[in-house]
């Protein structure tokens, strides 16, 4: 009997925790999956969306989202005052401004103010380990709760009207968020999304599609957010790298060259008019 009790105790100690659902009733199996900087018409309609990749991650009371500026200084911290109700795996938590709630017509789970820096910054959620995403000309990775790796779109950062969204197509389940969808490298983990799709913890969702598509660096078309692109020599003659000019200094621009159509037109008109003048003078 004593031996049976002994082995039962051993089993209970070692095996029962292993059979239980992972981290049930917690907050940390969660990732930042979408960041939206507002639109040109509603620049304060910003949000950050978290998503659980395991059940029971709704105990977020006291935990926070922190926003950083381009050098890693804290801009603002938004702390949950209560848990959220829905702890189903893959459910989301929406941290949004009042303007975003109005724009998308859904309620938010935590209110933030419009403080996302467009040109460069980062946000972190204090999961375990903390999850962070950085973008643009962000240089303060050492100040974050956890590394965000290379910033997303280091040349132009966040673009009004376009969300950045975590790519969840890798891993075992291409349509579900998994731990492996986070490589701690924002440039690799996030993509530009033409349609912003916030969804709150209750499951209500909204959407916004901007009139201009996400820019594609390297397609030789100067698109929204790009200073130049590939062979777009007018904006940066010979010096367009990663869709920006290579001149040192923030906001550097180049005075452009004369476009090729102008030069060809000039040569053509000189030849045409010169010929007419010569013929006229000789025939008179």
């Amino acid at each position, binding site marked *: 009997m004593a031996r049976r009790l002994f082995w039962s105790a051993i089993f209970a100690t070692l095996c029962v925790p292993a059979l239980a659902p992972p981290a049930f009733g917690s907050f940390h199996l969660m990732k930042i999956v979408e960041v939206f900087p507002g639109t040109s018409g509603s620049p304060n309609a910003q949000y950050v969306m978290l998503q659980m990749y395991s059940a029971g991650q709704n105990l977020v009371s006291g935990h926070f989202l922190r926003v950083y500026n381009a050098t890693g200084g804290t801009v603002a911290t938004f702390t949950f005052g209560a848990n959220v109700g829905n702890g189903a795996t893959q459910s989301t938590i929406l941290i949004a401004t009042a303007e975003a709630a109005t724009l998308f017509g859904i309620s938010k789970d935590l209110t933030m103010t419009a403080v996302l820096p467009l040109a460069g910054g980062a946000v972190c959620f204090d999961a375990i380990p903390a999850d962070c995403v950085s973008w643009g000309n962000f240089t303060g990775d050492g100040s974050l709760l956890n590394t965000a790796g290379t910033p997303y779109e280091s040349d132009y950062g966040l673009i009004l009207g376009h969300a950045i969204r975590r790519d969840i197509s890798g891993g075992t389940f291409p349509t579900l968020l998994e731990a492996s969808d986070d490589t701690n490298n924002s440039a690799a983990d996030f993509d530009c999304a033409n349609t912003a799709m916030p969804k709150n913890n209750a499951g209500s969702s909204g959407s916004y599609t901007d009139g201009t598509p996400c820019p594609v660096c390297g397609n030789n078309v100067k698109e929204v957010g790009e200073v130049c692109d590939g062979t777009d020599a007018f904006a940066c003659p010979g010096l367009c790298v990663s869709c920006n000019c290579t001149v040192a200094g923030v906001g550097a*621009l*180049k005075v*452009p*060259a004369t476009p090729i159509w102008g030069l060809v037109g000039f*040569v053509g008109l*000189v030849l045409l008019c010169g*010929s007419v*003048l010569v013929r006229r003078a*000789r025939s008179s």
Partner: protein
Amino acid sequence: MQPVRGAASPNMLVLRFALAFFGLVLLFSALVRVDIGLLDGVATGWLTNHAAAAVAAALRSLGLPAVDLGNQITLDASRFEIVANCTGIEIVGLFVAATLAFPSRWRDRFKGLAIGVPALIGLNLIRMMSLIYIGAHFARALDYGHLYVWPMLLLAAALGMWLAWARSVAGGERLVG
């Protein structure tokens, strides 16, 4: 002034003009490329540095806080780099080539260059000043200004000046060849 008439047929004269024009354009392009590629931009570098200094001085004379350093100009929070093309070197080169190639007397050619080249350089100075001001204060309008408005204005000015000169030469029956 005694008109100078040559014996060449109009077709031959036109052909000579076209060949001389293309030849001078190619020679001019080659000189620029040799300077940039082999001589590390000695000539074009000198040109861009002086253009930047001139533009910054002109902006300062208007009360704007422009600062030049080498071939760069900073105005408020924006920095601009003056590259060879910005100096008007292309348009001046084309004007010079067209003027030298036209079958006229050397005296007329030099007269055309003496008026046309400084005028184009002055107009390009105004172009750079305005683009830098627009870039610093109305960045969204910069593309429109530099891709459409100023190229049209500069090319139209160069073409207009050359045509006026060529007409005066041809009309005065001072063609040579």
